[in-house]
């Protein structure tokens, strides 16, 4: 199947799902509940799914597990909040949303490139440690530079621009923008990995020694991959900041960083769609478990869910569904010797 056809089919299917789900919710639930689902659960799943997509993209195709993606999203969020007109308190201010968002995305790309450059020679557990150190370091930096970032209170009142006369944070408007962004980025990733660059990236994942012997610049490919992941995370960061009406250090701290990793692993790192599967599972648990139990129990619950999924299926919910499907159809495992 050609790349164009794959993208067209996936795009149509994705669009279908993204349109049908809210429709089904409106049909099945009273309006205010449907809006709650769309505005609070689906929208959040999409935002954090986008940020998780940046992690999954790097992990699936490059073999790099980066814990700095929440930080990169946070950099976009802070740049937006610091520069945009109307945010409280005024740090820089004065820019309209289009310009502020552009600067935020630029900052996230630069931050991604920087993370890539800093971590360019590290792999596996060392990569995990160095990106974690960056994330924690940035969190401390934000928290302690009160003049720049307004400390633990953060920056509020980032409402987003009006879209066709409706508020950005109107559940249907927000959902439409978030799902459109998510779908475009997802298709972008699928496209990218079939380009010469994307193929080389997978070559680096499988065999860095061979790929450099073949004439590829591994360092450059790695840094560019982190830059692209930075852009993806930045899109999520901008949306998250508008969704949360602002940004504070808490949203980029260690807890947020780990939550993002949990979403990605729960969804499965084998395919980029896992990012959204994981973020949806997480958003559902986060919403309903928190109302059943208190906050601390939620953490143990999501921890338990994480453990169960990872124990049953090392490649997350995606792997789980694939395994079930194979079981039902009675097909052999992939990789098993052909009969």
């Amino acid at each position, binding site marked *: 199947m050609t790349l164009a056809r794959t993208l067209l089919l996936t795009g149509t299917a994705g669009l279908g799902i993204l349109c049908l789900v809210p429709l089904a919710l409106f049909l099945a639930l009273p309006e205010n509940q449907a809006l709650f689902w769309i505005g609070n659960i689906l929208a959040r799943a999409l935002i954090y799914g986008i940020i998780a997509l940046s992690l999954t993209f790097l992990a699936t195709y490059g073999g790099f597990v980066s814990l700095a993606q929440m930080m990169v999203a946070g950099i976009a969020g802070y740049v937006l909040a610091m520069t945009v007109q109307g945010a409280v308190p005024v740090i820089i201010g004065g820019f309209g949303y289009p310009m502020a968002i552009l600067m935020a995305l630029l900052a996230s790309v630069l931050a991604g490139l920087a993370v890539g450059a800093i971590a360019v020679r590290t792999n596996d557990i060392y990569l995990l440690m160095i990106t974690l150190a960056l994330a924690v370091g940035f969190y401390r930096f934000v928290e302690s530079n009160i003049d720049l970032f307004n400390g633990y209170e953060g920056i509020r009142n980032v409402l987003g621009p009006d879209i066709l006369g409706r508020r950005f944070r109107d559940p249907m408007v927000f959902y439409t923008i978030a799902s459109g962004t998510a779908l475009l980025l997802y298709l972008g990733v699928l496209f990218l990995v*079939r*380009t*010469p*660059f994307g193929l*080389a990236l997978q070559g680096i994942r*499988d*065999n860095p*020694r061979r790929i450099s012997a*073949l004439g*590829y610049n591994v360092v450059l490919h790695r840094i560019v991959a982190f830059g692209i992941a930075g852009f993806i995370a930045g899109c999520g960061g901008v949306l998250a900041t508008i969704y949360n009406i602002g940004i504070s250090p808490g949203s980029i701290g260690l807890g947020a960083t780990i939550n993002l990793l949990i979403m990605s692993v729960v969804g499965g790192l084998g395919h980029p769609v896992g990012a959204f599967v994981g973020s949806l599972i997480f958003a559902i648990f986060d919403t309903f478990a928190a109302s059943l139990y208190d906050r601390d129990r939620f953490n143990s619950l999501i921890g338990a869910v994480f453990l169960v999924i990872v124990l049953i299926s090392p490649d997350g919910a995606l792997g789980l569904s694939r395994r079930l499907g194979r079981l039902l159809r009675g097909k052999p495992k992939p990789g098993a010797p052909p009969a």
Partner: protein
Amino acid sequence: MVHALELTDIGRRFGALHAVRNVSLTVPSGQRHAILGPNGAGKTTLFNLVCGDFPPTSGRVVAFGEDMTRRPASHRARIGIGRTYQTSLLFTGLTVIDNLLIAIRGARKGRLSLVPSASNGQDIRDATVLAERVRLAHRAHHEVATLSHGQRRQLELGMALACKPRLLMLDEPAAGLSPAERPELNQMLKDLPGEITLVLIEHDMDVALPISDMVTVMKDGEIVVQETPDRITDNPIVNKIYLGQGHG
């Protein structure tokens, strides 16, 4: 006429171990050159020095008249040095065609291309031809992880051929092949175009001798004999160090 390869007194130490010492070797263009020797003789290390996996601790590497000694491995792929590895180094998560595509594109510009380039269709045709040439057409769209050992060796050869090499360096291409798979490999080696210079490490004299013009025997990091294949088996030193301990 410039030689394909000229090694002058190259050596490599790994700590206290002198894996390759004072090796001087000239391979004229178009020659089929076999390198024999017992395990640990330094043959693979010599290849790695030529291909730039690491620099020599002494001496000079010149390929096609250009000093390669300090050049990175990637540069050598671009000037037409293709190699295979003793243990296959393939991209196991990708298909046969994708492996070949990566190898084809490695040798030229536009490798960082974020959009499929104009030559994309041509690349895919080239990769398909290569897959046929190493007799893997029927496995072209299978993941490398599902290939048999013999098929992986064939793909190794295809990857080395992808940069349209002027100098092809094969590290024990027959290693681990079943007796049934060997004739196929021999045929593939015989079918290589005459203008390709071939340097071949081979444990098995029955594979190496019929296709080579010149044979170099190494032991303990040094060249001990250099002879034509018809005279090599009569050489007493060779008989003592190589044939004496059995082979194959």
